[in-house]
């Protein structure tokens, strides 16, 4: 990956309307994003290279619709992480709607899978917390996107937001408490 200047410059040109620049930006930022997406595939990381790529492609497709001005690489990563959250929440919502729609499932074998925790229901619960936070404390939402939805480390999250790790530590404690409280008490 090259230095930061060319990316920032390219991002600027892309923002001002030169869409062809995207083809130049892609390979530059791609590696970075690829790592980002892979991180939350942590549990079986080796097998999901292709899936991570697919996710990033989707993030890029949505990026074409972003109206905000992109300042620099950190900002860019922030926007992509926001998109990641959006993609995942949309997916979880679609899944929940389908279930409520009462799709008939002829297969009724119940002895094969144990544990009924539904990740999409969990993600929607997390999202409901973030929606309230967006009004009261937007910085915690950014932290959630970077740290949880993009699987960034402490240091990366702090530097993307330009805050100290001790500030992050305090913010994250509250954020984690809100999310866990929602999952264990406030679940619909």
């Amino acid at each position, binding site marked *: 990956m090259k230095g930061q200047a060319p990316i920032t410059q390219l991002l600027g040109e892309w923002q001002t309307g030169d869409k062809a620049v995207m083809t130049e930006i892609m390979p530059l930022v791609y590696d970075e994003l690829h790592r980002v997406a892979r991180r939350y595939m942590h549990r079986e990381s080796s097998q999901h290279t292709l899936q991570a790529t697919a996710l990033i492609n989707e993030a890029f497709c949505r990026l074409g619709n972003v109206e905000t001005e992109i300042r620099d690489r950190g900002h860019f990563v922030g926007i992509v992480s926001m998109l990641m959250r959006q993609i995942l929440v949309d997916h979880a919502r679609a899944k929940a709607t389908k279930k409520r729609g009462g799709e008939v499932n*002829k297969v009724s074998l119940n002895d094969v899978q144990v544990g009924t925790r539904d990740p*999409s229901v969990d993600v929607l619960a997390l999202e409901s917390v973030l929606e309230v*936070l967006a009004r009261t404390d937007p910085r915690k939402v950014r932290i959630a996107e970077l740290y949880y939805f993009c*699987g960034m480390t402490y240091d990366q999250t702090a530097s993307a937001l330009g805050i100290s790790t001790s500030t992050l530590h305090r913010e994250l404690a509250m954020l*984690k*408490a809100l999310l866990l409280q929602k999952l264990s008490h406030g679940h619909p």
Partner: protein
Amino acid sequence: MSLERFQDRWHELDRLFQQACDLPREQLEAFCTEAGGDDPEFGRFLYELVTAAEGDDARVRDSISDVAHDVTSGGGLEGERAGVWLVGKLLARGGMGEVYLATRAYSQFDEIAILKVMRFRLNKTEFVRHFESERQVHAALSHPYIPELLDAGQLEDGRPYLVAQFVDGVAIDEYCASHSLSVAERIKLVEHVCKAVQHAHANLVLHLDIKPSSILIEKDGIPRLLDFGVSRLLGQAEEGHDSFTPVYASPEQLTQETPTAASDVYAIGGLLYCLIEKEPPFTADRQAPAKTQLADREAVANKLKRTMIPTRADRELRAIILKAMAIDPAERYHSIAALLQDLDDYRNNVPVSAIQPTVAYRTAKFVRRNIVLLSVAGALVALLAVFAVRGA
């Protein structure tokens, strides 16, 4: 109780939370009650938050990562149609794709099948080329230990799927453990597996991904060998992409050479090792570079040669595993039949081909095989000697 209710008091909540976190546990409840003031629910919410903060956020991460899996693998076929099949519950998700339960739509009787969706996409021509030939291959395989292939097709997004008979069983290693099978019983099961593989080889089909999890044992003890040809399909489809590495891949598969029947022999050696030693022969890290994995294979061979795993396998069994898992394919059993013969001989105390046929070895086997007969003969000889002495 949710955050929404207290969003007007957000900054107060944030501040109190930081304070409460630093308090000794025994003071927490009183602090929260006081903080609540007129609104006891506010106090309780604060208390819940502080106690939640001590928890592990693994569930947050796992849920997010599960949904990410769903998005990226295009999962969530549940309730959808695939050809004439109605897709049911997701059973498993792995390197090759997803496995669902399925039933035939518009069918009078509830035939339950397994629907496997591959994770790669093919265009129509590629699909026809790969899958139609595969379907013919499967049609040729008719063996009681190999589940029948019922259908194959392609989803709208280009991903191919296979539909096979549903097998209600547990993986062979789990089955051996939960039924506390003896070594002989374990070997007998492996012999059954060998017979299924032998049948496939006779029909010019290699399995190339034999591993404990692809052998299910049904309640009546009948083994079923799953996923025939799937790895080959993956290998073809992913040329130039990240290549598919079977768990018990033979050295030649690791180095991308053309696999042969000897590669299946190697994997059965690994299976045998796993069932006898009760642990996999090597760490199945598909991500590790081929060089590291090859070194692992060599370490196993050396371990077997130096008799460093005498715990459960005796000298002969070790020799059988060593021969099946030889690094050089030419040093392995030349066919599944030969391996099968040795396993059978081992169980019956007949000399096995994996051990050099010395006179001492053959005599020892002869003695063990005929131990009762020889004891009687020995007693007779002794009696005769006694009589001979008396007579003198």
